């Protein structure tokens, strides 16, 4: 090979390499710039903290300890009056009589939009039946059909409550679940009887990144916070964002470690301070 061709190949190769490095440095979202990770031994220690407190851990211990920022969110901008069009494709649905909420009626279905932004769709006659492993696909396609699906929704957990099961889908942002932003589908005997959702609009991360606490530290706080819990089976430990319910226009939400128990009880440990969210 002559020197000129070799130079050309090298120039192309280094150009590609530089593009990749630049992309990695400047364009990849900050949360992916994981700082450190727990070693296998540390993860085992974290698990031991939970086990020695009497918990059975039915999920993997996350090892990432990323640097994160607060996340700005705002209320979902959709006006109450526009919901009938997106759910029923009927902008002229009949207005319901409800002093607290904005409500609409379409046949056997009632749509309620509460002042705090929670939207509930009731089915007078529970909708079509589905069973077994197909249920998730069925719910997803049903939500799509009703204009209530978004690609940012991810299945979270199923909570059994008496005769019905509530399937929870969480809104995600850049891969992080927003634990307070959900779509709940209530299923009775394989039929969808209610859909309830509360979504926010993620805006941007705040500028300052802070090292989060590891799940090992969060486990200590969880054990203290959950000392009166009778259920001792942990089905999920994950990192995401959380906020209490505020009557706000715009607010900041914080990264948390969420510990979920089999009965649907959840505990949020602030991933910045390591303290339980009260």
């Amino acid at each position, binding site marked *: 090979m002559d*020197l*000129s061709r070799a*130079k*050309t190949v*090298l*120039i192309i190769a*280094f*150009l590609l*390499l*530089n593009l990749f*490095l*630049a992309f*990695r*440095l400047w364009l990849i979202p900050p949360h992916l*710039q994981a*700082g450190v990770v727990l070693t296998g031994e540390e993860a085992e220690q974290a698990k031991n903290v939970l086990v020695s407190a009497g918990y059975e851990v039915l999920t993997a211990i996350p090892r990432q300890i990323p*640097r994160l920022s*607060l996340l700005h969110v705002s209320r979902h901008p959709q006006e109450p009056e526009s919901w009938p069009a997106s759910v029923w494709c009927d902008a002229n649905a009949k207005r319901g009589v409800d002093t607290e909420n904005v409500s609409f009626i379409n046949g056997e279905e009632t749509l309620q939009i509460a002042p705090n932004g929670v939207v509930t769709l009731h089915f007078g006659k529970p909708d079509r039946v589905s069973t077994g492993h197909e249920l998730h696909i069925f719910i997803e396609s049903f939500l799509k059909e009703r204009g209530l699906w978004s690609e940012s929704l991810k299945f979270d957990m199923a909570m059994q409550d008496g005769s019905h099961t509530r399937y929870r889908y969480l809104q995600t942002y850049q891969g992080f679940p927003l634990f307070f932003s959900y779509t709940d589908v209530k299923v009775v005997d394989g039929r969808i009887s209610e859909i309830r959702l509360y979504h926010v609009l993620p805006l941007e991360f705040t500028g*300052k*990144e*802070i*090292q989060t606490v590891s799940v090992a530290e969060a486990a200590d706080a969880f054990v203290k916070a959950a000392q009166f819990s009778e259920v001792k089976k942990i089905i999920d430990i994950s990192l995401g964002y959380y*906020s209490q319910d*505020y*009557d*706000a*226009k*715009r*607010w*900041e*939400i*914080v990264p*948390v470690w969420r510990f979920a128990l089999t009965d649907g009880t959840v505990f*949020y440990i*602030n991933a*910045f*301070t390591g*303290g*339980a*969210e*009260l």
Partner: protein
Amino acid sequence: MGERLKTVVLVFLVITSIILTGQLLFRLPALETAVPPAYEQLVFGELRPVTEHLKPALHFNTGNELRMLQPWDKGYDTAWEVLNKLLLLNGVPEAFQPLEEENNQFLKDRDAAQVKLHFSVSSPVSLWNSSFRLHELIVDSLYWNKAEPGLVWLRDGERWLRSELHALPQDFLENISIVFSEAPKHIVTEAKDWEPLRVLPGKMLILPDAPLLLAPRRIKKEELNTDKLLRSIFVDTALVRRIEERDGAFIYTDGQKGLRFYDHGELEYTSPKSEPGFEEMELASVMRRSAQYLQLLGGWPEHIYLDDVIAAEKSVWNRQQRDTYYVTFVSVQEGMPLIGARAPITLHFSDRGVVYYNRQINLLGEETASPATMINPRLITHEVMNKSEQEGFKASLIDIYAGYYLKESIVSQAVAHPVWAMVFDDGRTAVINGFTGKFLVWIE
């Protein structure tokens, strides 16, 4: 020429890739490169000693006239300097129970006492007297008469106590006359003066001797250094999130503590993890902590006085509030209390810290009209009686005083009007326009 250019480009690309790789591998994250946060202890004003906020009302009765000094009155400190010698008890007080047939005379003698000190919150004598034997003595009133100069009568809740005094200075009585010479004169009214309202038996209702001359005044909200307050509460503000509520309020929280600034100037702080408390506290400790918390949470302005201290009720089923204390304050400006449905400062805390804090201080501004004479409160009893009957209340009058009324929510440039407040023994207070005598509102 072309080959040279290729060489230059190649060298440039190689160097760039080395720099980028280095950055990716060794770039220090922002936190580590940042200057470590300088945590400073932020406080608002000086720490007030306990003895400064547990000050009694001072009464001096010559037989012909009654003069009174409240902690906010001019000349109070000089008078208190003289009278606090009555707390230098000699020995442990003994309980005294007058015989039933002598009881009325006994109470009359006490009412006729030349000097009376009355604490709005029962206070430990040990604050002024270091004797360990008086450690548990808490009094609400103290009586002294020149006929028994070596004795002092104390009221300990429901009991009467009698104690000897350390020798008083020879010019004690003369000094009292001097320090009270400029004090406002008052009169003791009789129950029949307030008919058709009922007066709680044994309760003396005292009014200023001279008609009060007051003018409506503008009110403005207190301006706090919110940034300093934030840094005082949250050690690292980088961990604090901000929530902008739709009613204009702002909330700051780190998940465990929350600070809310309302649009109308009120602020509220909550920290649920501070309850229940671990230990019971004595009044002196409660007051010391109140002063410390106020110093951290916005300060203790001169016009704010202690109003009440209540230990949370202990119940078996409510463990949460155990060993926690509510302390409320009153604002007195231009010599008049500001009367409203809510206290300017409410503090709820335990030995583990503040559970709840509310602050909504209003400041009296300039007069909006010329001062005018306030109506004689004895002329408004029918108005209050009618209102009570309409609403089915049957309580007895226990106190009456003048002040400035603050509505529940103020807007900027609002005006506070002079009012009479009639306090009843069921906890309600009737607020009456001080000029027209018109009933305004009940305050619970």
